[in-house]
């Protein structure tokens, strides 16, 4: 029997703020234990929470960027459960009036893992619908020793967004695409660094399988503890296989929470869902309700940055870039800014120049950066110089081949392209007399190619062209030398 998977995600995202959600302690990852704590985030007797406006704004902004409806009246609720990492033994969260409702994330082709981009589903622009986004406080971090556990409250009380999807995801690759799109959107808008390895983005997956075509859902399991987007893909794939095998072997899936072990590549049973939680939600009497229609939504709409998918579309529309180039250039906000900076500095036909810049960035720069273990911030090539180089090629001053050499030199030294061109004596030969002499030498030295050309083999012209350029030590203008060769051969 053929089975299909039904997957919903609960994504927790740390919101980037200076201070915590309900107190003034610094919101920072990696500080020495318990150095960012105060009576409020330690849940000392007598303290009260005061909500951080920036965290509310960033949650609203997230909602707007993901097409959510922003709830007009919202409130904070207390969610009660006892756990040592939770200072008050209730979490301030949002229950029935969250900040954002509905919305969705469209899965673009290049958000899928590379090896899955050819799959037709990657091109389907599937919309994964969201149920809600709410704001809450994060819990402390526990460290486990032989017989004890140690707790560091630095993370306790930092702002956390919870994004809940509909069970719209059907494969590990879609889960991957959803998370990478979300990760890009949030990090580009500076809402969160959303780094899974740092726990800034955490994802629980609810997975069930059912015979294809069946309407009723199967029993779901919740998978936790993935610390990368590709880890989520592996965990989901493992879990789908496990569930299908269990059912195929006549077994039953029981509702349970399972932990992913990335090293072992398996999920393990954490707990069964026998004892249902009773969170005893009620409106937090310490916190006043919120109205989003008194200017909050309006001001956030004005501050709404372009999302990666909006930018991708703009690149395709305005610069006629192909979908791959557009997606790579919009995948990182710094890269997009760099690309646009270079484009502004370059002269020539917009679309032609844009394509040339895209090629340089994608085919050369990203590789060079990777090889040098650098990021764009370390890059020595000023956008103006980069633009200048592209202009030189566009104006026919140097060949593309020469330009690549210059680009490598620019990357290494940060020098201006004109300086490098001069130093290397790289001026392209466009003088017809000089080109004719290289062309004649090439024709004389390669009678076989001449015969082939005259017999109609067009490829032979390229061979002759290559010879002529070689004779010119690479300085001959490739387009012009081709024209001169043709003229001589056809004469």
């Amino acid at each position, binding site marked *: 029997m053929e089975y299909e998977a039904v997957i919903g995600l609960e994504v927790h995202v740390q919101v980037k703020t200076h201070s915590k959600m309900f107190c003034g302690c610094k919101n920072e990852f990696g500080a020495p234990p318990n150095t960012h704590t105060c009576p409020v985030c330690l849940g000392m007797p007598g303290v009260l929470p005061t909500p951080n406006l*920036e965290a509310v704004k960033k949650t609203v902004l997230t909602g707007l960027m993901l097409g959510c409806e922003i709830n007009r009246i919202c*409130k904070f609720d207390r969610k009660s459960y006892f756990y040592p990492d939770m200072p008050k033994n209730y979490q301030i969260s949002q229950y029935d009036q969250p900040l954002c409702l509905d919305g969705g994330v469209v899965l673009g082709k290049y958000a899928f893992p590379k090896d899955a981009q050819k799959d037709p589903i990657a091109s389907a622009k599937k919309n994964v619908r969201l149920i809600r986004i709410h704001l809450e406080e994060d819990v402390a971090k526990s460290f486990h020793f032989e017989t004890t556990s140690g707790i560091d409250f630095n993370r306790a009380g930092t702002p956390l967004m919870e994004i809940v999807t509909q069970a719209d995801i059907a494969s590990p690759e879609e889960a991957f695409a959803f998370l990478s799109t979300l990760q890009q959107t949030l990090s580009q808008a500076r809402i969160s660094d959303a780094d899974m390895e740092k726990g800034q983005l955490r994802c629980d997956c609810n997975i069930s399988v059912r015979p294809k075509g069946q309407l009723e859902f199967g029993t779901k399991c919740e998978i936790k503890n993935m610390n990368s987007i590709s880890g989520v893909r592996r965990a989901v794939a493992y879990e789908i296989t496990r569930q299908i095998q269990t059912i195929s072997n006549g077994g039953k899936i029981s509702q349970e929470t399972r932990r992913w072990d990335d090293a072992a590549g398996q999920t393990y049973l954490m707990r069964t869902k026998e004892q249902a939680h009773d969170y005893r939600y009620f409106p937090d009497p310490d916190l006043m309700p919120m*109205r989003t229609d008194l200017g909050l939504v309006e001001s956030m709409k004005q501050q709404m940055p372009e999302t990666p998918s909006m930018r991708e579309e703009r690149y395709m529309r305005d610069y006629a870039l192909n979908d791959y180039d557009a997606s790579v250039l919009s995948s990182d906000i710094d890269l997009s800014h760099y690309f646009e900076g270079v484009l502004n500095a370059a002269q020539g036909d917009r679309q032609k120049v844009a394509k040339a810049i895209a090629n340089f960035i994608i085919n050369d720069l990203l590789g060079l950066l990777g090889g040098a273990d650098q990021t764009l911030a370390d890059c020595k090539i000023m956008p103006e110089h980069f633009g200048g180089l592209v202009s030189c090629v566009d104006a026919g001053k140097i060949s593309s081949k020469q330009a690549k050499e210059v680009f490598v030199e620019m990357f290494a030294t940060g020098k201006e392209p004109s300086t490098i061109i001069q130093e290397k004596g790289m001026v392209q030969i466009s003088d017809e007399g000089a080109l004719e002499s290289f062309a004649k030498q090439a024709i004389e030295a390669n009678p076989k190619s001449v015969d082939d050309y005259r017999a109609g083999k067009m490829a032979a012209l390229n061979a002759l062209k290559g010879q002529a350029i070689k004779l010119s030590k690479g300085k001959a203008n490739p387009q012009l030398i081709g024209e001169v060769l043709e003229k001589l051969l056809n004469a």
Partner: protein
Amino acid sequence: MDVSYVAHLARLALSQDEITRFQSQLSGVLEHVGQMQKLDVEGIEPTAHASPVYNVFREDVELPSLPVEDALKNAPQQANNLIIMPKIVE
């Protein structure tokens, strides 16, 4: 009311004597509280705050934290600036 069940939700161990005593005392209280069920509250808005004001926020400004020794001073058990508990099993 299942006193033992509710007490466990509240992480409260009780002796058998307490369970019996609370069971009868609380049923008396619930009986009194039950008067409320006679009232017609159809269409009445609930009051969560005595005088509700909307959008009372704090600006995102960092304030000094406690020195770590003050933060941990009242802890029953601590080591290496961590608060220590019996092992937490998830």
